[in-house]
């Protein structure tokens, strides 16, 4: 590590990280879960750079998925759940895009998608599960055989295998590995050597990063490596898996970042309202994405008062007493 302050050349701007590591047509894994630790700044930048034809892979994702779909960057999705919890039981632009045939979806469950990332992380062709036997998740393909061939996807959505040990186990579902072109994630801390620390739930972020061909991390803080190496048990990813580090406070806004800030209920409610109408949504995108030069300008638009309001209690991890209606 000849230049720790540059994180070995991996420290870069949001603009450069997206331009370098996210290409038209890429398979992109979205970190986080519904309204928590979504890589929102990266998503806004992808929309600003108009990178299209993306193939999204995620277990449960909410806001990042919906903005990418809404901005027209997405062609295909493999997913278990597109929603924002109480703030949008089904993400609105996601729903509209599927109903209009603007995106093609192939459905899995949360555990199935997480296991597919694990298979990629372990570099094995598949993972077995008993989940989904005799359901339409197993019976119905979302992608046609032609699409599978053209997009270099596994030849089958999944395989149902009888117990190969000749025992009493019955059928098992084999889920093909995912190896995304790039994993996008947001972490609380990155060391100046590139070590990543995530606090709170990690969801499948770690498996996604290990499965991916490139990993881009935004973070709340860059800290001295020695601070993170004092307790290696708590670290999530080693430096050698990380390709780009973009230090950006509040880069998950309006989703939450445990111990740093809560989700922004007002922003999420306004988003949902705008998403319901095509015209209103275009205006929303113009106001919050296209006409915003960078993350600093975005935060200025959100405003200090709002950012203070969602600031997390450093012990509990969320904004105690926040008005969440």
């Amino acid at each position, binding site marked *: 590590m000849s230049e720790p302050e540059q994180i070995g050349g991996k420290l870069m701007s949001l603009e450069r990280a997206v331009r370098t590591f996210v290409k038209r047509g890429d398979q992109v894994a979205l970190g986080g879960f*519904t*309204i928590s630790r979504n890589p929102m700044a990266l998503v806004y930048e992808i929309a600003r750079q108009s990178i299209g034809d993306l193939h999204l892979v995620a277990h449960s994702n909410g806001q990042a998925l919906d903005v990418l779909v809404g901005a027209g960057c997405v062609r295909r999705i493999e997913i278990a*759940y597109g929603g924002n919890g*109480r703030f949008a039981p089904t993400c609105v632009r996601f729903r509209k895009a599927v109903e209009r045939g603007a995106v093609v979806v192939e459905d899995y469950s*949360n555990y199935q998608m997480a296991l597919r990332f694990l298979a990629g992380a372990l570099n094995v062709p598949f993972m077995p599960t008993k989940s989904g036997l005799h359901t339409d*998740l197993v019976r119905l393909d979302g992608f046609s055989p032609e699409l599978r061939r053209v997009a270099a996807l596994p030849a089958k959505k999944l395989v149902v295998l009888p117990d190969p040990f000749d025992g009493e186990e019955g059928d*098992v579902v084999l889920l093909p590995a995912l190896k995304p072109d790039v994993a996008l994630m947001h972490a609380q801390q990155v060391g100046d050597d590139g070590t990543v620390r995530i606090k709170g739930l990690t969801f499948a972020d*770690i498996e996604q990063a290990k499965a991916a061909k490139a990993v881009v991390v935004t973070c709340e803080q860059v800290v001295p490596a020695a601070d993170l190496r004092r307790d290696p048990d708590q670290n999530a990813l080693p430096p050698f898996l990380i390709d780009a580090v973009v230090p950006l406070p509040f880069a998950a806004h309006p989703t939450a970042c445990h111990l740093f800030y809560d989700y922004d209920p007002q922003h999420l409610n306004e988003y949902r309202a705008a998403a319901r109408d095509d015209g209103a949504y275009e205006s929303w995108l113009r106001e919050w994405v296209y006409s915003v030069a960078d993350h600093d300008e975005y935060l200025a638009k959100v405003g200090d008062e709002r950012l203070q309001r969602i600031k997390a209690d450093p012990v509990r991890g969320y904004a*105690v007493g926040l008005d969440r209606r």
Partner: protein
Amino acid sequence: MSKPTTTGSAPTAFTPREMMAIAAGRFIADGDIVFAGTGVALLAAGCAKRVQAPGAVIFFETGGIDPTLDEIPLAVADSRVMDGACINAGIIEAFSYVSNPRLHTIAFLGAAQIDRYGNLNSTCIGDYHHPTVRFSGSGGACDAGSLAAGFIVFMEHSPRKFVEKLDYLTTPGWLEGGESRRAAGFARGGPIAVVTDLCVLRFDETTKEMYLAERYPGVSDDDVVANTGFALDVSRAVEALPPTAEELRILRDEVDPQRLILG
């Protein structure tokens, strides 16, 4: 047909949502691991833990296990499922607990459609490739339905939702009834009950067909039948115990004092 909105007289008047939370919570035994989700499921879990199952563990599929829940989470990834938990697990780890045969995990699930065998649809209406309505998708519902020791379904009771045939089978219930679930390769699990805004439905031990088990006070057999899109056995129905004053106090004052879910 019309549905009752509030039943009984003060101080034990209650809403259908309150009745649902309390009726569902009664299915939880001490020591159960409760796959809770959000919304009314979380109210049910919170009631159960404070009424009859203090040793039950409230569990989120995201990996937050037994958090303080000093505030109600509005999504399963909310920081409020992490605070004070015994462990913050990954998703794979979380589902490994759901699947663990040592643990009696009971899941609360919702859905857009249910059929007579308790199979659930939370994916779409219409043809899968050209849906007229798209929902969120399985999330962890298929996993919990496949792997947990059992599950309980929350449904709004309407003929659009209680259907002869699902548009998409997201979550395995009793499949085609009888022994078909075991034959498919599931070692355990299956739907235990369906809790609606009108009643509690259960499944016949042999055929695994849904039947009316408990009508809420003020609800008739006909109310239920009219809101169910398939033939329903009502011969075993009794009236549900209304919420006790203590159950209502716990639900309102302790579980959701901000009325974020109770509304």
